[in-house]
């Protein structure tokens, strides 16, 4: 069977499975819609959390990014896993004990203030929307690459699927669908990795292959060989970074704290029955995430070594089939600057600006003298002749390793599972923010549960449509959005929630001023240093505060939030006794009623 047939078959089967699960697990009450009735087994919740967490970017792009960044890519690996330790130790058990439905619920009750609740709702919506726009785009990309439909068409198909199961099933439907999606995505990620590891190092386990010797008879370790290739081509060594230490530190910290502060992650821990389950559930989630996150750097190193070995100094006409196939999609391209017909890979961009392939008037790709695609861009003065897109490292892996067609189809299904599961989780946070935090808690407190459920479904529907719109028309600031989502979560939720648990004296005034200052600072820095607003151009790196990039600035904003919160709270009245009792109560796992009986 062809790749195309396999892809339709496997993607079709997985979609049928997701829809079947959604119908089986449809939500009958708001409790089920928001938190799956609080009855999810911790192991299942761990899997669902992992699928929710790992997006199209984790699945498709991360290995590629690490592959090009080498050591610098570690910020993502540590940042996006280390946050779970903070989550498990500092947040999950206490929020589960608190026992409400959403993050703004906690902020609003703990800080006895609707203003605080409103600030939290706005943050939750902004963070989730910035994140979900990228996911819908990811769905469109996967569709367009594997099923050869238009990207926008892909976005619409993805939207229709998410629409269906998020609205029927709420958190309950989403959770069980995500369990299935985790299985699909991890299988799809591991199969090519295992084969490539076996090919290159003779080791079945990619994590061990990563630290083994290559089996090309040279007796070199994989990473030693890769460092050598980098030196020969004039790159910095793979295992050596080019970012400054303080920036690596700041970015890693911001990603960790941001992870622990993301509402769609936190809300997962409301879905398990007990405090004990919330703790272990975070452990399972991280274990399931770690399987992918420790494989990704291995894939990165394998793919990079393989790629350089395959093309460096070789004749273009001798390139394998996959090179030419992915050329047509614009993920890899070669421009013969010195006219020798051989590929030369070196540091620097191959062409000016964002690479675009040249086409003829009737839309066909133009070809050069060897049959290669041609850039519409002007060449740069570097000796580098190759453009390589990050995403090719995972997408082309099965072909590079010479794996059968069904594996290629599986990678498509895995990428879709990753994008859909994350999008659904985010949409739920948005719909809950609308129906519960806004309508029920602020505007229409007397509405019936049935009515609230309709608001939740309507909110989800509205959110899906807005997300699809952003997927089709990605906003100009999309490059900054992921960093912004993490920065905002780090600068707002994380300090407000942890202080709410660990500092009994923390009051309304402190938390609100901390959040507002943190968010404004984060926004301001991002606007100036990433987007170049208020100035003629984006300021140079040398003007960064403390040498910290906008991606890492969330850590500074978080510290400022902490300091402002503590100082302001000590100058204003202590929180009321009832609130102090809440804090006492969430610190102890045992039943809430008992504390008041004594």
């Amino acid at each position, binding site marked *: 069977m062809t790749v195309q047939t396999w892809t339709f078959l496997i993607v079709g089967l997985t979609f049928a499975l997701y829809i079947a699960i959604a119908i089986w697990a449809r939500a009958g009450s708001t409790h089920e819609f928001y938190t799956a009735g609080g009855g999810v087994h911790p192991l299942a919740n761990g899997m669902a959390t992992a699928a929710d967490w790992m997006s199209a970017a984790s699945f498709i792009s991360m290995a590629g990014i690490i592959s090009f960044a080498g050591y610098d890519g570690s910020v993502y690996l540590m940042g996006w896993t*280390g946050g779970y330790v903070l989550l498990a130790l500092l947040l999950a058990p206490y929020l589960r004990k608190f026992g409400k439905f959403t993050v703004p619920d906690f902020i609003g009750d703990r800080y006895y203030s609707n203003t605080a609740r409103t600030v939290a709702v706005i943050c939750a919506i902004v963070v989730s929307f910035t994140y979900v726009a990228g996911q819908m785009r990811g769905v469109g990309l996967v569709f367009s690459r594997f099923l050869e439909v238009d990207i926008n068409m892909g976005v619409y198909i993805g939207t229709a699927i998410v629409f269906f199961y998020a609205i029927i099933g709420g958190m309950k439907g989403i959770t069980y669908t995500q369990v299935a999606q985790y299985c699909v995505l991890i299988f799809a990620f591991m199969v090519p990795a295992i084969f490539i590891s076996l090919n290159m190092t003779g080791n079945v386990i990619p994590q061990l292959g990563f630290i083994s010797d290559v089996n090309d008879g040279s007796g070199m370790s994989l990473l030693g060989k890769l460092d050598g290739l980098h030196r020969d081509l004039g790159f910095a060594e793979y295992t050596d970074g080019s970012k400054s230490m303080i920036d690596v530190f700041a970015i890693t910290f911001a990603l960790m704290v941001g992870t622990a502060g993301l509402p769609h992650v936190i809300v997962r821990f409301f879905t398990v029955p007990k405090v*004990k389950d919330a703790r272990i559930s975070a452990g399972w989630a991280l274990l399931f995430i770690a399987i992918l996150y420790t494989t990704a750097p291995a894939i990165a190193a394998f793919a990079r070594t393989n790629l350089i070995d395959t093309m460096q100094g070789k004749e273009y006409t001798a390139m394998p089939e996959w090179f030419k196939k992915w050329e047509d999609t614009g993920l890899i391209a070669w421009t013969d600057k010195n006219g020798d017909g051989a590929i030369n890979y070196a540091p620097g961009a191959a062409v000016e600006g964002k690479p675009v392939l040249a086409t003829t008037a009737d839309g066909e790709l133009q070809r050069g003298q060897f049959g290669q695609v041609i850039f519409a861009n002007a060449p740069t003065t570097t000796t580098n002749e190759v453009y390589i897109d990050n995403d090719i490292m995972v997408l082309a892996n099965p072909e590079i390793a010479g794996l059968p067609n069904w594996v290629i189809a599986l990678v498509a299904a895995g990428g879709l599972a990753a994008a859909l599961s994350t999008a659904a989780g985010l949409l739920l946070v948005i719909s809950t923010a609308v129906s519960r935090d806004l309508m029920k808690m602020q505007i229409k407190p007397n509405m019936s549960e049935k009515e609230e459920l309709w608001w939740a479904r309507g909110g989800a529907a509205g959110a899906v449509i807005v997300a699809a719109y952003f997927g089709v028309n990605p906003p100009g600031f999309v490059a900054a959005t992921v960093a912004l989502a993490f920065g905002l979560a780090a600068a707002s939720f994380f300090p407000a929630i942890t202080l709410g648990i660990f500092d009994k004296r923390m009051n309304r005034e402190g938390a609100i001023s901390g959040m507002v200052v943190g968010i404004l600072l984060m926004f301001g820095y991002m606007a100036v240093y990433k987007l170049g607003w208020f100035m003629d151009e984006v300021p140079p790196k040398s003007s960064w505060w403390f040498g910290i990039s906008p991606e890492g600035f969330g850590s500074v904003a978080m510290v400022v939030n902490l300091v402002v919160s503590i100082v302001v709270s000590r100058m204003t009245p202590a929180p009321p006794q009832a609130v102090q009792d809440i804090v006492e109560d969430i610190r102890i*796992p045992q039943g809430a009623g008992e504390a008041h009986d004594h």
Partner: protein
Amino acid sequence: MKKDQKQRTAYWRENLRYLILLLIVWFVVSFGCGILFVDQLNNYYVGGAKMGFWFAQQGSIYVFVILIFIYVWLMNRLDKKYHFEE
């Protein structure tokens, strides 16, 4: 009531002590081994990988997973000790 309050305070203290210990390990394996002391550790090897690099891309993640499971075990024991289990 007084006794109950004492129990709660003692429970919370022990909890905080565990948190501090575990977070120190969390910090050391990631920010310590993977970032601050990466160059020094890179003089040693884990298999074919430089040790600092290995901590940044593999080791720290393994330790994170283990840390959470240790935390779960410690807290379950603590809940039993103070009869706070659900």
